């Protein structure tokens, strides 16, 4: 234990958040598990300190006193006296997921996360890259036929409608319309003058991204499955909140001249992390997290590399593959 294992703990990894868990509790649990693992190392060898003791000198007839140096065990650094070595660990969550949603959640452990380290330049590059507006993939399930106040299935019922007239073609048409309007918004929020050659080239390659704050922007949306009253859509978006995704389902219902509520929001990709690399709740311990960070490190570095070297407007990022 020590600085070697700590240095392997800096970086990014992803967890799978089950539905019903608040992201803050998830963050706290990950921190607790990491501290547990770090503090479980073998205790240091018992320390000694030197004391000079008065005692009669050997081989003397009179009572002559002399000082002898002896090593006496010292308890000052005993773990039961000092407490655990690590008490606090900085763990950050990238893009939050609300309690009812589930899915891939990127977690960031910055340099200098641990109290013991203290020293360590904040890795601004990592932070910037992570906030660098990579898109996320969601699978959203909707239910036709009712409308509630918070767009969730268990909210207060507002309206019930029929949905027999809804067909797959109508749904696809609506989704294409949504994608088209969001494409326009993309260009608008990225503050690019489309009349320039560079902007045209970027648009051709699909690299236009707004770097500043913007409302939710959908870069891709399609229907995966349609079996009334249920339908499943896949959404690729950025700057979103899960509530807006649910509102999107509600609006799709309205466009279809019926109503819809959202029964599930599940994130399948967060930036470069997909479902395969996400750690399940049973795997939230020190070793699995260290392995996950090590495995993800080359991909993260590659992504960083790409973003730095993309020339032109260096902040624009390509869509992750």
């Amino acid at each position: 234990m020590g600085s070697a294992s700590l240095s392997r703990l800096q970086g990014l990894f992803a967890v799978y958040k089950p539905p019903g868990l608040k992201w803050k509790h998830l963050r706290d649990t990950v921190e607790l598990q990491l501290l547990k693992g770090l503090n479980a190392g073998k205790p240091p060898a018992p320390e000694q300190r030197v004391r000079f003791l008065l005692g009669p000198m050997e081989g003397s007839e009179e009572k002559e006193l002399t000082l002898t140096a002896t090593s006496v065990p010292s308890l000052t650094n005993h773990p039961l006296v000092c407490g655990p070595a690590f008490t606090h660990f900085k763990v950050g969550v990238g893009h939050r997921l609300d309690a009812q949603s589930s899915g891939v959640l990127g977690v960031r452990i910055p340099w200098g996360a641990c109290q013991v380290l203290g020293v360590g330049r904040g890795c601004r590059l990592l932070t910037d890259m992570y906030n660098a507006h990579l898109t996320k993939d969601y699978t959203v399930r909707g239910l036709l036929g009712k409308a509630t106040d918070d767009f969730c299935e268990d909210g207060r019922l507002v309206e019930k409608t029929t949905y027999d007239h809804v067909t797959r073609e109508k749904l696809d048409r609506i989704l294409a319309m949504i994608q088209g309007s969001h494409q326009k918004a993309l260009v608008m929020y990225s503050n690019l003058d489309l009349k320039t050659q560079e902007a045209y080239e970027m648009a051709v390659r699909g690299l236009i991204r707004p770097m500043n704050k913007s409302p939710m922007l959908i870069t891709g949306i399609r229907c995966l499955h349609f079996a009334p009253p249920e339908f499943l859509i896949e959404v690729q978006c950025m700057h979103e909140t899960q509530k807006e995704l649910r509102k999107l389902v509600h609006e799709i219902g309205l466009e279809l001249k019926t109503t819809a509520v959202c029964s599930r929001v599940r994130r399948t990709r967060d930036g470069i992390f997909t479902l395969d690399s996400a750690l399940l709740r049973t795997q939230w311990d020190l070793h699995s997290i260290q392995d996950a960070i090590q495995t993800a490190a080359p991909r993260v570095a590659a992504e960083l590399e790409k973003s730095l070297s993309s020339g032109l407007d260096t902040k624009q990022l390509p869509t992750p593959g």
Partner: protein
Amino acid sequence: MALSAPQIPRWFNSVKLRSLINAAQLTKRFTRPGRTLLHGFSAQPQMSPDNCFLQWGFKTYKTSSLWNSSQTTSSSSQENNSAQSTLLPSMNEQSEKTQKIPSFDSEVFLEELDDLPPLSPMQPISEEEAIQIIAAPPLPPSSFTLRDYVDHSETLQKLVLLGVDLSKIEKHPDAANLLLRLDFEEDIKQILLFLKDVGIEDNQLGAFLTKNYAIFSEDLENMKTRVAYLHSKNFSKADVAQMVRKAPFLLNFSVERLDNRLGFFQKELQLSVKKTRDLVVRLPRLLTGSLEPVKENMKVFNTRLFKVKERHLFLTYLGRAQYDPAKPNYISLDKLVSIPDEIFCEEIAKASVQDFEKFLKTL
């Protein structure tokens, strides 16, 4: 007599703000440091101003203790006692005796001070005397951690060897003060022997004392009465041992309080005497905790809830969720929760762990 800055001993400057004594005592002691010394010195006019640091050091400890005894009648702060342990061996017997007595015997001290001759650093001394000077750095008079005192206090050392977690106790300043003032042989040993008698094993003592350090300020006779009361209510010795282990504060409750609480549970839950006894033996924290519904260990419940939910959903997905004992392929509910993941997957769900994990990622 003017006091120049270098003569003000180091320990005045090393006072840490977060000290173990309460703020009132602290301000009283240190607002007028000059006065403290002067007060002491007025008693011995023959002291020469240039004392060597050591002599100065322990005299000021004593003078401050004199001052303290005249100011505070309650038991003096632990700094004095810990400071005195670094004094020359001749003074140690004095300090041992005075650990219990709240007010010092000022006359004895004054006599001792008169006997010691004044020394100047330029004065040549014999080898014998040179050896006998202990120049160890003085203990800090107040500190926020017990680490500074653990090497000088036998009590603390023995507690650490027993397994008591001092880092948790030092977060409660009163507790830390108490432990420093107690003597292992006299107070603590009796209580430990009593606890062993009740039935707590050696290796469990550490955990118990870390939670309930206040037991040292309880009266031994009272605690024996409480144990006798529990025996009279037909709790066996093993039962009492288990209850005390699980709820360390149990023995701090008076007999009437215990009686009230047992009666409360019996009435509210309308259980028979035997059932109340079983309940209390299994969950003694009901007796010591607050009597409102306790949301204790939300996290534990949440984890259990998640596990049950996940497993149930997996079984439903596989079509194996059969909870009716009459039908075949019945799965008992406690098996659903208690067994570990691998066994659950293999035997009950008849699927592989990877399949279970894949399913979990689709939730």
